[in-house]
């Protein structure tokens, strides 16, 4: 086994099946120390299954998953203490109040950071005797984030942090996390299907769909080879959808957005040929969400 001290997560050819339903088809990914890594995919893509394997909640059918060079299915307690895990849906002991939550976790984590817990809780403006079960989704997410950060673990794994949060709380969550991660050089693996939020947060990402890797790499490279064109709404572009080079056509109140593999230099020729007429279009830069939709589809 090759030990790479800067590698925090190493996954090779991960496969898993539920009954007769194969959900992971040879996933490969690696996350180095200090990186913020995105595991992106639509609902049912296999993100949570991958996280469950990473955390030892599932044994993969085949493949290898190492966390801090330990097999994820048999992580030692000292390694588990190095991983702060945000469970999907911001799972928390909702019968506890804010104070009890801190007292409970504090006893398990030697490096517990009281200050950061107090800082995030203060922002909530709630009494320390406030029960978690009486909080809104957003408030609960702040408490779980406070617990996560106060653990002061080397690796943070956030499974679908955006679930149930409105845009404001999603932004707040990421702002707090971003600041923390940058200052303390933590490694982060985040999964989500709401990709527009994390574009400015992650360094690298892997995009999976139906358990298969679609693309991976630096965030700026994920959409490499894809180009976006805006076309007036009064143009009939139905014919474009039959071309394999066209990955997505979206419509909004002002124009169509066509995402294709056609380079701008070839776009004139392509549209002329495909639609048998001259059309007016303009090029636009793709967002991560555009790339995501183009590569995984809308359904």
């Amino acid at each position, binding site marked *: 086994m090759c030990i790479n001290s800067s590698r925090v997560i190493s996954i090779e050819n991960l496969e898993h099946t539920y009954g007769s339903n194969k959900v992971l088809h040879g996933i490969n990914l690696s996350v180095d120390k200090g990186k913020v890594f995105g595991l992106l995919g639509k609902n049912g893509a296999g993100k949570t299954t991958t996280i469950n394997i990473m*955390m030892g909640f599932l044994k993969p059918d085949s493949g290898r998953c190492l966390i801090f060079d330990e097999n994820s299915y048999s992580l030692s307690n000292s390694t588990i203490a190095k991983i702060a895990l945000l469970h999907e849906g911001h799972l928390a002991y909702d019968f506890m109040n804010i104070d*009890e939550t801190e007292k*409970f976790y504090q006893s398990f984590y030697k490096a517990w950071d009281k200050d950061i817990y107090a800082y995030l809780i203060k922002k909530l403006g709630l009494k320390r005797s406030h029960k978690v079960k009486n909080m809104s989704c957003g408030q609960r997410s702040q408490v779980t984030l406070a617990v996560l950060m106060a653990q002061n673990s080397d690796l943070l794994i956030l499974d679908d942090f955006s679930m149930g949060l409105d845009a404001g709380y999603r932004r707040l969550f990421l702002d707090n996390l971003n600041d923390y991660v940058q200052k303390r050089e933590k490694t982060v693996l985040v999964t989500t299907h709401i990709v527009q939020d994390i574009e400015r947060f992650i360094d690298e990402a892997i995009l999976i769909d139906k358990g298969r890797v679609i693309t991976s790499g630096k965030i700026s490279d994920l959409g490499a080879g894809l180009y976006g064109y805006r076309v007036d709404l009064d143009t009939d572009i139905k014919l474009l959808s039959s071309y394999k080079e066209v990955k997505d056509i979206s419509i909004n109140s002002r124009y169509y957005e066509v995402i294709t593999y056609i380079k701008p230099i070839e776009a004139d020729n392509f549209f002329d040929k495909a639609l048998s007429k001259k059309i007016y279009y303009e090029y636009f830069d793709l967002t991560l969400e555009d790339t995501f939709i183009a590569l995984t589809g809308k359904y």
Partner: protein
Amino acid sequence: MIKSIWLKEYIKIKKILIIILLIHIAVALYYFITLRGGFEMVTPVQIWSDIIAKNSIYFYRYEVVFYGTAIALGVFQFLPEVIKRCFRISCHLPMNEYLMTASMISFSILFLTLLLVIDTVLIFLVSSLFFPYDIYSLIPKVMFYWYLESVLLYMIASILTLEPLWKNKIKIAILIVGIVTLINVTVYKTDTYYLLIIMAIVMISLPIIYYPAIRFRKGVM
């Protein structure tokens, strides 16, 4: 760490624990009032003779209270863990999962033990006001038998609540009904032989909780 798990369990089912404690004290009061009323109407010798002749256990209602307590503890302790998936959080704590599960069940078993002591002392005190020692001397032994059975019932309730698969719940339930029917043959339950059998069964049942717990940790959910 064990203390922290106990604290978590206490916070989780605090209200249930208080209700249970009040019920147990209420039953002791009930016996005090009922016995006092009975002795006002009939001569003590008549009641004593009746009890001895029928070999009856006049504090028999404690049996149901103990069993109800055990089932309530098992259900209320583990149902939130399963429904709200809190057990996942517990499973990610930097603590051996066997020790974590053992800490959870030991909390309730300790509570049942505390109840045994409280109930035995209370009913012993109440009985000492109305009966000669020969009659109430059997209290600790009978109570201890009910305690052992309640520990067993607590384990059963916990296992069935924590078990994630309905098919397995049914299989375990059938197996348990068989065992309980087998041991529930004596009326007075004071025979040392039966006490030893039930103790052995309780000891055997304790590790069974690891079957659903470890599968929860290691992957059927």
